[in-house]
């Protein structure tokens, strides 16, 4: 069928399609988002959904596998924490329909709140971990993963890093193979995970991993590339292997496709032929520790960083330190001076802008959450005081309030959370506010309802269809919250700046529990197409109130005939949201007609 260029994400979707995949579920999170989108758009044979959170996605996957369907569940690394509860028990069962968990790890944290190494989940859950090094392998490993899953009756982790998710390379296409869905058969000993049914499951998990470790050679997933001229054996996997090959060094390489379980006996035999064994892996010493436990002498983290990516130059430096390669006296590359940074910022027309402008002026403690509005912690807004994990803001606000009160340091507290994050795991935190609530708790939740999961590219969520995006869920958020038992819910259009400021300030002042929901949709997904604005320099007093809203098209500039710089708006970027014109104290910002 020929070759096509594909990203790692696209290749995984393709692999699942070719392997006769039946159901794919996910919660959007960088770097894995495009995988499920690819399935949704291109492979209609597969049922695919973005679930409400990773735990639910995983559970939908379990049901599919129980019924004999080939199943793929995908999420970013921290998403696996959310799904860990069903994972850790599901892994005890004898897997029916092949089950692959795609974990998008993010060494270097290009877009994540931590750097956790999810290979450890593999060991934690007695679950094999596959680690591809390019798009072709990403595709092949999905298929292989499903087969391992069915043969050894285990879930399989396909661990892929953010670079590979977005990297493109050529992939050989194959036809789809239809796989029969065997259906669900009652088997309480296998599916009813309570003791004593769980007792012999511990042995099942242990046995399958040991068996797979002994039979890895059958899979052909690991590769030994010997070189005659060296005493060094390098053990590595994933993109790090490709970076190492770029150096074109005369070393022996053992490339792992499966990093758990390791082919210990094969590696033990090989180790006897080499003076030195070096392990190169990103993040934790996962492979290195396994080898050391088995008494195979090696070094790894002694020469390579425990954090960040290991790019070509990092590998060269580490190998020089390890004495594997001679330091090359390469011509010193010219180093230019420091270049001004470029932080991400709210888009032109972003509905978060007026809210954060108002919150900044309140000078209160604001507990943040995960989404585009996390950027409210960055310069120059610096409005948010904390960010931890999805949906955590409301619980954190509650605990902080209780303890501050205990110390006689009571102050009004505010939590901001988006609609997607609220559905994901903020609802439970909100409900929990009703428990042991004191009437003098001054807590305000600002629910930024922008109609989409914006940060990851605008996927629909449970109330998106009320914004007319054609999706199928239309939860009435204020009604939901009222039903939960909150009587003070105020809904406000934040593009009416004065009104929004009044409402937010009133609710922060209010002694008690209150919720403010804003209504404007994401400007990236639901484009604003209004005539744009311009600054009349003869009226502008250069007070910079508009500049402080931190909007991409607005900055100070020189005008002919004026001594002082005045504000200006780049017409190619302005979408016409009007917020700057509303904060201007002298009416210098006018709409073009």
């Amino acid at each position: 069928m020929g070759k096509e260029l594909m990203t790692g994400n696209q290749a995984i979707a393709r692999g699942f399609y070719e392997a006769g995949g039946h159901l794919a579920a996910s919660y959007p999170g960088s770097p894995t988002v495009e995988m499920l989108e690819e399935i949704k758009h291109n492979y209609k044979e597969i049922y695919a959904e973005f679930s409400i959170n990773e735990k639910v996605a995983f559970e939908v996957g379990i049901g599919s596998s129980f019924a004999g369907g080939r199943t793929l569940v995908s999420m970013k690394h921290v998403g696996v924490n959310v799904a860990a509860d069903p994972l850790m028990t599901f892994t005890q069962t004898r897997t029916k329909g092949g089950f692959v968990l795609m974990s998008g790890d993010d060494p270097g944290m290009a877009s994540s709140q931590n750097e956790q190494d999810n290979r450890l989940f593999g060991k934690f859950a007695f679950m094999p971990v596959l680690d591809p090094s390019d798009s072709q392998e990403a595709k092949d490993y999905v298929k292989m993963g499903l087969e391992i899953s069915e043969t050894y009756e285990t879930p399989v982790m396909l661990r892929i890093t953010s670079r590979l998710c977005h990297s493109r390379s050529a992939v050989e296409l194959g036809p789809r193979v239809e796989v029969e869905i065997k259906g669900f058969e009652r088997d309480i000993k296998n599916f009813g995970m309570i003791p004593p049914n769980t007792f012999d499951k511990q042995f099942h998990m242990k046995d399958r991993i040991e068996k797979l470790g002994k039979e890895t050679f059958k899979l052909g997933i690991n590769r030994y590339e010997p070189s005659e001229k060296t005493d060094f054996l390098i053990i590595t996997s994933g993109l790090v292997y490709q970076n190492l090959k770029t150096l074109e060094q005369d070393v022996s390489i053992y490339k792992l496709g499966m990093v758990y379980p390791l082919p210990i006996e094969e590696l033990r035999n090989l180790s006897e032929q080499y003076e030195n064994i070096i392990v190169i892996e990103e993040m934790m010493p996962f492979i290195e520790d396994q080898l050391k436990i088995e008494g195979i002498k090696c070094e790894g983290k002694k020469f390579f960083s425990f954090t960040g990516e290991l790019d070509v130059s990092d590998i060269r430096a580490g190998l020089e330190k390890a004495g594997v390669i001679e330091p090359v006296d390469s011509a010193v590359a010219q180093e230019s001076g420091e270049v001004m940074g470029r932080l991400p910022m709210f888009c032109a027309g972003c509905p978060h802008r007026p809210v954060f402008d108002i919150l900044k002026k309140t000078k209160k403690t604001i507990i943040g959450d995960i989404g585009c509005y996390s950027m409210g912690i960055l310069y120059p807004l610096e409005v948010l005081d904390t960010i931890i994990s999805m949906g955590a803001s409301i619980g954190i606000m509650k605990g902080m309030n209780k303890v501050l009160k205990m110390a006689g340091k009571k102050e009004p507290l505010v939590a901001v959370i988006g609609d997607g994050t609220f559905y994901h795991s903020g609802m439970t935190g909100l409900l929990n506010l009703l428990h042991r609530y004191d009437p003098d708790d001054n807590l305000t939740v600002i629910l930024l309802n922008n109609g989409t999961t914006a940060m990851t590219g605008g996927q629909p969520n449970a109330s998106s269809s009320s914004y007319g995006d054609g999706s199928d869920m239309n939860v009435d958020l204020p009604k939901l919250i009222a039903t939960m038992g909150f009587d003070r819910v105020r809904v406000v259009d934040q593009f009416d700046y004065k009104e929004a400021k009044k409402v937010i300030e009133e609710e922060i002042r209010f002694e008690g529990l209150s919720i403010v929901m804003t209504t404007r949709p994401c400007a990236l997904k639901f484009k604003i197409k209004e005539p744009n604005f311009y600054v009349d320099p003869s009226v502008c007093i250069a007070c910079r109130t508009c500049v402080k809203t931190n909007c991409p098209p607005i900055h100070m500039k020189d005008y002919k005939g004026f001594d002082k710089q005045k504000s200006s708006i780049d017409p190619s970027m302005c979408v016409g949201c009007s917020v700057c014109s509303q904060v201007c104290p002298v009416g210098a910002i006018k709409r073009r007609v």
Partner: protein
Amino acid sequence: MNIILSGVGGQGLVLTTSMICEVAFRAGYDFKSNDVVGLSQRGGKVWGSVKIGEKVYSPNIEKGKADLLLALEPLEGLRWQDYLKKDGTIIVNTSEVYPVFAIAEQAPYPHDFLDQFRKDVHVVAEDVLKISQGIGTSKIVNVVMMGMLARYMDIPLDTWKEVISEKVPEAFLEMNMTGFDRGYENIIGDSY
């Protein structure tokens, strides 16, 4: 051949990277590419790399090893110029996008970027936004710059055009084609 692309979220850099890959692929080369797109759509810096050759292992390019730098914005050109090898070429769109620090007047935008580019590389500078707007839309900056890039690559123009015609939205096809041609022609004699 090693190419670095850099710009600001929303400039279409990811699509550009994928089109260059597709062109190299159809011309029979091995290739790998990368995009770093963290918070890109929200005005953050975004960059990518394309490596083309007989056999390509890593998609990543080391400092001092790039042949070409396609900078969709001047500051993002300065940021990545150390990746160019001696005698490499920067193709830069001179239309400025202010980062937060310049908006907030913490530091001046480096309007003298042309003087700050390395002296041991070639610089090709054009106000590509102006060219694009002249054609009828500000959205084709990336394709005009692909036209400029095509001058430096030994791949038939028809291959480039075939890929563009498949990848850009139908309604904008004509403007994209005009843009590509304009970029390709424009580059002559404008080197600094």
